[in-house]
């Protein structure tokens, strides 16, 4: 039978005269694998364990996340701690599926030119991030990260925020009416708080309207929604206390 199928005058030879049938068979062949792998993730309830403490991004964090995306930070930084001892030692608790339920798009990354950021939240003070974005080599000598001084100068554009929250709510992120309507105010308040803290730590003044506060808000939230069992960050801490010394 098999011989007959691929023989010179076999069935396949005939198939080569029927491009429509050929195309239909090809389409079936390429659909099977994707469906078998994707459907269980959607249809099987509990294929992703929900974690009660995981909450949607605040409006300012969402704005910071979108800046992170625009700058392509994910091209060099992953956000996915794998369940290996050396990764847990270096970065903290490994990443759970339930932590990413509000991630649109997911930002797990595929390359670590720089360190993983899945658990970077709370690891450094706000001012460290401000200095680091302004000039990475001021906080991490020999770093090869590009500098982002414009984040301290460019105004934060919040005008799309209500639409963003509305769209995300359509897709299933549980934002309240209040959050959607007052998204801009809520973001401003949070920005204010971060800017004050940066000032208190001895940093530049007047950052509350700049992009940097959004990216700091986002980075400081990363990986903090679950109680990490191991006290993360035995490594990779290039000493938060050095922040002021470096400048």
């Amino acid at each position, binding site marked *: 039978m098999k011989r007959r199928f691929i023989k010179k005058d076999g069935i396949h030879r005939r198939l080569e005269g029927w491009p429509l049938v050929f195309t239909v068979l090809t389409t079936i062949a390429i659909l099977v694998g994707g469906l078998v792998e994707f459907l269980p993730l959607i249809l099987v309830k509990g294929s992703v364990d929900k974690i009660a403490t995981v909450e949607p991004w605040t409006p300012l964090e969402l704005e910071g996340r979108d800046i992170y995306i625009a700058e392509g930070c994910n091209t060099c930084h992953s956000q996915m701690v794998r369940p290996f001892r050396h990764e847990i030692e270096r970065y903290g608790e490994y*990443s759970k599926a339930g932590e990413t339920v509000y991630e649109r798009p997911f930002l797990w990354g595929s390359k670590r030119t720089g360190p993983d950021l899945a658990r970077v939240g709370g690891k450094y003070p706000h001012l460290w991030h401000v200095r680091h974005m302004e000039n990475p080599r001021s906080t991490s000598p020999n770093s090869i990260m590009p500098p982002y001084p414009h984040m301290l100068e460019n105004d934060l554009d919040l005008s799309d925020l209500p639409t963003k929250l509305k769209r995300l709510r359509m897709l299933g992120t549980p934002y309240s009416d209040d959050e959607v309507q007052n998204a801009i105010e809520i973001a401003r308040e949070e920005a204010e708080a971060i800017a004050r803290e940066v000032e208190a730590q001895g940093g530049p003044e007047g950052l509350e309207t700049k992009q940097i506060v959004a990216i700091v808000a986002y980075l400081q939230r990363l990986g903090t929604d679950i109680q990490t069992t191991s006290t993360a960050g035995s490594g990779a801490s290039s000493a938060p206390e050095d922040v002021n010394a470096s400048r």
Partner: protein
Amino acid sequence: MAHAQTTSAPGTRSTGRSNIEIFSYDEQITRLFVYATILWGFIGMSVGALIALQLPFPEANIGEYLTFGRLRPLHTNAVIFAFAGNAIFAATYYSTQRLCKARMFSDWMSQVHFWGWQGIIVAAALTLPLGMTTSKEYAELEWPIDIAIAVIWIIFAVNFFGTLYKRREKHIYVALWFYIATIVTVAVLHVGNSLAIPVSLTKSYPIYAGVQDALVQWWYGHNAVAFFLTTPFLGLMYYFMPKAAQRPVFSYRLSIVHFWSLIFIYIWAGPHHLQYTALPEWAGTLGMLFSIMLWMPSWGGMINGLFTLRGAWHKLRDSVVLKMFVVGITFYGMSTFEGPMLSVKSVNALSHYTDWTIGHVHSGALGWNGFMTFGMIYWLLPRLWRTTLWSKKLATAHFWFGLIGILMYVISMYVSGITQGLMWRAFDEAGRLMYPEFIETVTQVVPMYWVRLIGGLLYLGGVVMLMVNAWMTIRSAPKELPDPAYAAPVAPVHSGGDGRPGAAPASGDGTEERKDDLVEVAPSEAADASAASGSDAPGTKKPDGPGTKKPEGPGTKNAQGPGTKKPDGPGTKKPDGPPSLRETDDED
């Protein structure tokens, strides 16, 4: 399928004799795609060289818009969709017309496809540095551009399938199978992965979240490699390799087996990009399993390509086209071995997130896609422009620059990747991380980044040589390049296996063929197959001229008796070839 369409398509006209019609191939569209391939190849690889410099030398991140994070997607998009994309369109438009013995279905659609695609590339080159990106790898473009891609792709599909519909050749040759798989699957992948809800013209959120988004993205990402960088290039190989080698394809049966197994299995392999992540483990395991199974279908293609040179290895000596093809196919074999290896969990644990991945993709992109493209362009240049290649020496220099460039690139990335992987996981005797500061693992590999840059610049230098060679060749082309006319019976011919009509081209070809080492033989492409199975009876020849061809009606199309088969040009030579050639088999 109705093959009997005889209405005049563009470029087709009936002659006075009712059973003969004159038609021509649209060569200008292939020329356009060749121009675009060379130009975007240079631009895409130049951006690659810039970002390769930015890694060891961060001062090269210039201002707000030209940082590594914004340029890296520009580099990948330009090389995949602009360079490789235009190359596969050039291959498709050139070979489909000849394999179907029919002009493209619609010249108008061909033009829209070309200009639309270039417009999309320009849009990508503008929006990505401006930070308008979805962040999903190789699908970074925002939704308005995604819609444009879908529209242009549909136009391409209609044009392609329309050409199949009005073909004059009953059997669709293996190259066309791969084009069919490409067109269908890329459409499915692109639409499936790009589904998103717009926030504004420049921003959208995907309908999938978290784990689902990751799985869909790598279903897309992996199969963009499969169906944008593999299957169309296999189609290219199946057409141009036998042409350049003047040999039929090694095995018809192998081409059937490896085609179906390749397209079926490839789709499953996506989750191997997500080993040890939050993706459910069964999916990663399945991805690994199918990746390993994919090794054999991939090598089926490599064997069919390389063994097409059986008995003709000596031709490598003089032919830069064959040199390019052989190295390209060899890199295909190497990266399709490496890919399954990297998908194995224990290897992936070391290699993932490191530069090893970068080495792997460049062995595929520079070696397989790049060299197959260059080989095709060097083959097409004298034919499309009806002249001789300006400098064979320069082309050979391009080959060596490219080859040394690839080797420096991939070897430096292997060293760097394995170094990173080992340093990240190293513990000291006390059980603490040996390199707790991540920066130590960065500075360690910076020298390799310089080596990579040199390798990349060598490869880019080769592309500059191609630009010069193409420019000078085209300058020596005749002023007028009318599409050569061919004659064919009015009723589509459903027999024969010849890739082109029986008539000799009205102009062109003849003169330069003798000077060029790459003599075009009439029929090697569709000769594929039955030639390889060796059952061609002599005496079933192809008619010498159009007038002698039997105009068979559609009614006879299934009556493929042995008497109606195959032309007997060099393409239908029995696989063993003439003894005199066999002796040179072992050369090289």
